[in-house]
């Protein structure tokens, strides 16, 4: 177990190193980027001074790179080139709690809706619940999240006028963004849960429990669910990544002040240092989440040989 965790952490560090290196050199290689000398670009003088003081931009690229890695190791993600005196760390500190809150609610909603939906459609195979889950699954997998958000925004905020559109000031503000964010995860979870439930229900111990006379509801909730839910844990890793990229779109459409929106606006502003810092942060976040999920999975399911 210890060896496995160390292995996963080393693999994660390599992934992070590759991502950081690729991002750093790509951002520096863009012609006319903020890293080129001041006279080529109209960068505010105060920013340029701060940048040069911070990074020593007159140094050769490889020394800048080493310095950047050193700063990163101390948790310093760099500073913005567009907004004077804003660091990437400040952007993350302001935006991350907002994004994390919306994301966490979306995860909970996705699990609370997706799992029962999958179970019902597995038990009532071919009935209306099964059809409903298939329709949700198809819609959730087919319709891109930005199209879904715009359509729902149009339907509930423009036509029906029952939900607020922008910002996050009351609990009603959370309904639309969370629905849009959780929709495709619900679809995946319901499908995954359905097929894993169908498989588990064929096992002998289920028949034994039924033969003993255990109530059907208890057979499903207590005996079957315990094993059927394991595949859902593997989905939690990709789920975090889906919510992250989903947040780029949803936070933009619903004007939520999270890091997804900051990242997208840094892309349209061509604020390369923020893009670099945010990408590294997102990468680290995803890698850490994946490691936690993998370890969790190994702990929950003892049948997996993690030493292989």
């Amino acid at each position: 177990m210890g060896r496995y965790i160390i292995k996963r952490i080393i693999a994660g560090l390599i992934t992070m190193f590759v991502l950081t290196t690729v991002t750093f050199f790509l951002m520096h290689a863009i012609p006319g980027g903020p890293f080129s000398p001041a006279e080529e670009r109209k960068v505010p003088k105060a920013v340029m001074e701060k940048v040069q003081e911070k990074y020593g931009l007159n140094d050769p690229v490889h020394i800048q790179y080493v310095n950047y890695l050193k700063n990163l190791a101390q948790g310093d993600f760099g500073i913005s080139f567009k907004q004077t005196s804003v660091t990437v760390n400040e952007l993350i500190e302001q935006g991350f709690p907002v994004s994390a809150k919306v994301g966490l609610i979306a995860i909970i909603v996705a699990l609370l809706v997706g799992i029962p939906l999958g179970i019902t459609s597995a038990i009532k195979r071919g009935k209306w619940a099964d059809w409903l889950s298939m329709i949700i699954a198809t819609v959730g997998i087919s319709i891109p999240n930005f199209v879904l958000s715009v359509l729902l925004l149009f339907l509930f905020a423009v036509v029906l006028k029952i939900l607020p559109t922008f910002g996050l000031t009351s609990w009603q503000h959370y309904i639309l963004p969370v629905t849009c964010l959780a929709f495709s995860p619900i679809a995946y979870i319901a499908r995954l849960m359905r097929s894993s439930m169908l498989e588990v229900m064929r096992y002998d111990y289920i028949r034994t429990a039924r033969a003993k006379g255990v109530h059907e509801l208890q057979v499903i909730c207590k005996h079957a669910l315990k094993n059927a839910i394991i595949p859902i844990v593997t989905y939690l890793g990709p789920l975090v990544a889906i919510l992250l990229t989903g947040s780029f779109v949803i936070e933009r459409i619903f004007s939520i002040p999270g890091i997804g929106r900051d990242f997208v606006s840094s892309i349209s502003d061509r604020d390369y240092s923020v893009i670099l810092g945010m990408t590294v942060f997102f990468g680290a976040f995803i890698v850490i989440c994946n490691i936690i999920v993998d370890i969790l999975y190994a702990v929950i399911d003892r049948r997996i040989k993690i030493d292989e």
Partner: protein
Amino acid sequence: MSISVHMNDKEEDRFPGKHINELPDELFEKVGEDSKQDNEEISRPSKSYWQDAWGRFRKDRLAMIGLCFVLIMAVFAIFGPMFSQYTYDGQDLNNGNQPPSSEHWFGTDKFGRDIFVRTLYGARISLLIGFVAAAINMVIGVIYGGLSGYFGGRVDMILMRIVDIMIGVPDLLYIILVMMFLGNSIQSILIALCLTSWIGTARIVRSQVVTLKHQEYALAARSIGSSNLRILFKHLIPNSIGPIIVTVTFLVPSAIFSEAFLSFLGIGIQVPIASWGTLVNDAIPTIFTQPYQMLFPALAISLTMFSLNFIGDGLRDALDPRLKK
């Protein structure tokens, strides 16, 4: 010879005074010959793998509707703009923000550009990117996964570790970075989409090749001296063509999605060229006043994604019946 003489003697015992040739025909009965032919006669023409798959695919109603929709969409995308009096970038500032009418079927945007023609142009770009990206990813995935699975051992370990490192972070992050670097154009979108999308195909091909390479026909090919590459590309890959096609079919909608996503974020297709993603993005500021500007491109992209996913599901059931749940 002596035996037959002896036999004749015996026959003469049973039918005294008669030679075998003099026996009446009624005493003889034809055995087996006719009935055997009936049993073995092949009454129907034999079906090839593809005919069989097509037969199964044709019965899948949703997949057939999807196929028809994509074909109609493709015909409209290719020929539609030729028959319209409007062009995708022709501005008419006097007729901005018009609602749908017989003049402009889907209305006009704030510059007076015809949204119907722009949606058709979006279909061109989306379908082009979807199919070209899927084709390139198939080639890369088949070669990468094939080599990894066939040679195994250290080659496999190195190639798969590279894959592990690449899938550690969401591919959209890589794609966004590369788009920033290459600039907005169709070519750079294609390059960006081919960076990581082949990984799924590569994994499928690898697992197929790993199971198939121990089959007898692979051994037979090796024993008559076929080279490794010949065995891999002439025997193993064609035998895993079903799963490969299924994976590649699902690459088409995911490439269309990525393009629309990038264009939506403003780093995909550059204005004034229309793409479904940019059309939806452009329509957000006017969603309260001119919702149709967003509605038609959104419907076009949703219906196309539906169709392609249905086609993918149908193909999976048709080509690889073992996967059917």
